[in-house]
């Protein structure tokens, strides 16, 4: 139960740092995540807007260990219209602990200034345990801010993984202003978590 709970927690928090996986050409992004189970710092650099490479340092508070992931994210498809943008990404990560510790998957989103819909599929291999994760996310902006204003998103995320085969649904609040973005999520299994992102 404990290990399963921990794995669920890891999967839960890992999914949150998939947002904004690629920056502008030559841009960098720093992401930090923290909760009772894990502290994570993820830095990525985008040579072009098509892909990013990065490294994620993870401190696992439950297992009392640390690991690093080399990560690659590729923008497979993007459609820009006057009022919307749609994206499809491929993501992968390989741990420095060895070839048996990695993940890969896809995620996509469609958003306007008012609405957001996103999904993700991820396969994770950690030591000798393999599992999959999937999620759907919906969001609405309660107001439309101008450039430079504080922007707010009210979101709902629902996810499932192959370990317990149950859907878990929880609210997410997202705020961003300027180069900073902060996101809070609450899940009755993992309690509060926070995600901060800064784009250089």
């Amino acid at each position, binding site marked *: 139960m404990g290990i399963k709970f921990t794995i669920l927690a890891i999967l839960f928090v890992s999914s949150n740092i998939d947002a904004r996986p690629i920056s502008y050409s*030559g841009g960098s992004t720093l992401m930090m995540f923290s909760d009772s189970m894990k502290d994570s710092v993820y830095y990525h650099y985008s040579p072009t807007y098509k892909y990013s490479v990065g490294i994620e340092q993870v401190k696992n508070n439950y297992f009392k260990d640390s690991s690093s992931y080399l990560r690659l994210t590729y923008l497979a498809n993007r459609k820009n*219209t006057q009022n919307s943008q749609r994206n499809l990404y491929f993501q992968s990560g390989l741990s420095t602990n060895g070839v048996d510790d990695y993940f890969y998957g896809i995620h996509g989103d469609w958003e306007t200034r008012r609405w957001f819909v996103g999904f993700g599929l991820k396969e994770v291999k950690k030591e000798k345990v393999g599992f999959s994760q999937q999620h759907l996310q919906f969001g609405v902006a309660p107001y439309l801010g101008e450039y*430079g204003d504080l922007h707010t998103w009210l979101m709902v995320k629902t996810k*499932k993984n192959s370990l317990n085969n149950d859907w878990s649904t929880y609210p997410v609040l997202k705020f961003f202003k300027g180069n900073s973005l902060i996101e809070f999520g609450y899940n009755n299994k993992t309690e509060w978590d926070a995600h901060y992102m800064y784009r250089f």
Partner: protein
Amino acid sequence: MKLIGTFLFLFSSWAIASDHSHDHMDHSDMMHHSHEGHLHEKLVDGEKLIVNPEKFDKFISGLTNAQVAVVSVKGMVCDFCARGIEKTFQKDKRVKKIDVDLGQGKVLVAFDKGIDINFEDIKKKILANGQNATGMQIVSI
């Protein structure tokens, strides 16, 4: 899994069916004008300049002997996503000032008068942020 699989299938089909690559520009509404003495409430070569008047007036306040490129951009749906556009243009030393009008999907870029504003260069800068510039009007201040 079925729900996600169905969603993924629909999403992928939508992506594949869409034959408009983001790398391809829509030139249908591209304009390149250079006339002096026009502000936001006036026409630029007979075409209405669609910008947020308050934002535009604020942008040009303090500008003299300048020209403003009003660039139409597709895919600029969020503030955080548009930050890269500002950063990219700020690296160009010819740029005096830049702002983004999210509501109208415009990027305002001020240059000194006399500088040749190249739309292809503008398009490259916008594309470096993953969005598409589809048109440009130039207003002299």
